């Protein structure tokens, strides 16, 4: 079938999922106390903050290099999306600062609330993994299934449910850009996802996204409502977190103007 018809089919499948997402979000995130708002902001910050560092490097691999500039449109969309997502991470961090939950964004990197809950971590790992496929599969699984057909409903539900103006504004401020990411999914699927093989893989990616997103939404809601009682993945014992054995020597950049030290 044509890419256009494939998108319409996916849209039909996603309609009840979108409705459920809206209703679930609206019911879950109304009447949040301050601590619950902080937990919600931290978890959402977590999925946006590593976008440039992690998702981006994997997603670029999904777009083949073409000397004739065949995929220039997709490259431009992805570049803009990376910028948007990292700005959205800043929105969540700034909301935490405005609310007085933290003083600086750096605090979030080690804050227990910003450790991803299990479903959320699974979903993020899936997003990164999608970069190993052709970009039609990536765009069907992320931009179409999540950002076009599901995530706008989450945003709508959150805007309708959350009364706090600072927290609500975070969702309102990114509505247009998330809509743009969704449109890139629609565009890529319609234009490039034309063969049976591509559509089979794209459908599988979309179904997997919906399944993982559903689990993530349940875990996220439970964490936001119940807080510390929710089991979280343990802190990774990465060398980056360990303090240096001895103080690092002062290194100055060698520039023409800088005096020798």
């Amino acid at each position, binding site marked *: 079938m044509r890419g256009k018809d494939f998108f319409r089919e996916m849209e039909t499948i996603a309609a009840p999922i979108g409705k459920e997402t809206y209703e679930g979000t609206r019911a879950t995130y109304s009447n949040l106390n301050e601590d619950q708002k902080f937990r919600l902001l931290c978890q959402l910050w977590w999925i946006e903050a590593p976008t440039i560092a992690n998702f981006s490097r994997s997603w670029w691999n999904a777009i083949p290099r073409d000397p004739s500039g065949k995929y220039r*449109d997709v490259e*431009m*969309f992805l570049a*803009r999306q990376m910028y948007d997502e990292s700005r959205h991470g800043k929105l969540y961090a700034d909301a935490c600062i405005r609310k007085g939950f933290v003083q600086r964004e750096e605090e979030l990197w080690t804050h227990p609330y910003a450790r991803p809950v299990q479903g959320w971590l699974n979903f993020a790992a899936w997003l990164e993994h999608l970069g190993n496929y052709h970009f039609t599969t990536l765009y069907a699984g992320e931009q179409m299934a999540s950002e076009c057909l599901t995530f706008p409903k989450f945003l709508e539900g959150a805007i309708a449910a959350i009364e706090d103006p600072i927290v609500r504004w975070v969702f309102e401020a990114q509505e*247009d*850009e998330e*809509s*743009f990411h*969704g*449109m*890139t999914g*629609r*565009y890529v699927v319609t234009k490039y996802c034309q063969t049976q093989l591509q559509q089979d893989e794209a459908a599988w990616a979309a179904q997997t996204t919906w399944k993982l997103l559903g689990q993530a939404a349940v875990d996220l809601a439970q964490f936001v409502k119940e807080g510390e009682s929710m089991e979280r993945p343990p802190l990774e014992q990465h060398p980056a977190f360990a303090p240096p054995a001895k103080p690092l020597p002062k290194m100055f950049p060698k520039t023409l103007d800088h005096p020798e030290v």
Partner: protein
Amino acid sequence: MEITAVMKDVLTITPLCIDCGMCRETCPFQAVVCAFEKRHRYEILPHSCEWCGGPGKAPCEIYCPVRGAIVAAKWEEPQTPAVVG
């Protein structure tokens, strides 16, 4: 010689635009271009815009993520006077 202006239906970009570039990629007539200004926002060249069936049917408007960023407008198309024998 009387020259009557012809009003042409076109689409135009409003300040609600977020500069995502979807309209530029979807326009079949390459009527959407970067404007000559520092923020290089997009603009629709009225002489190239072919309306594409009007609001709600043009690809640029269908794919535009912001409601109200692309709207219908009237443009006075300059007419070349006919050369009379």
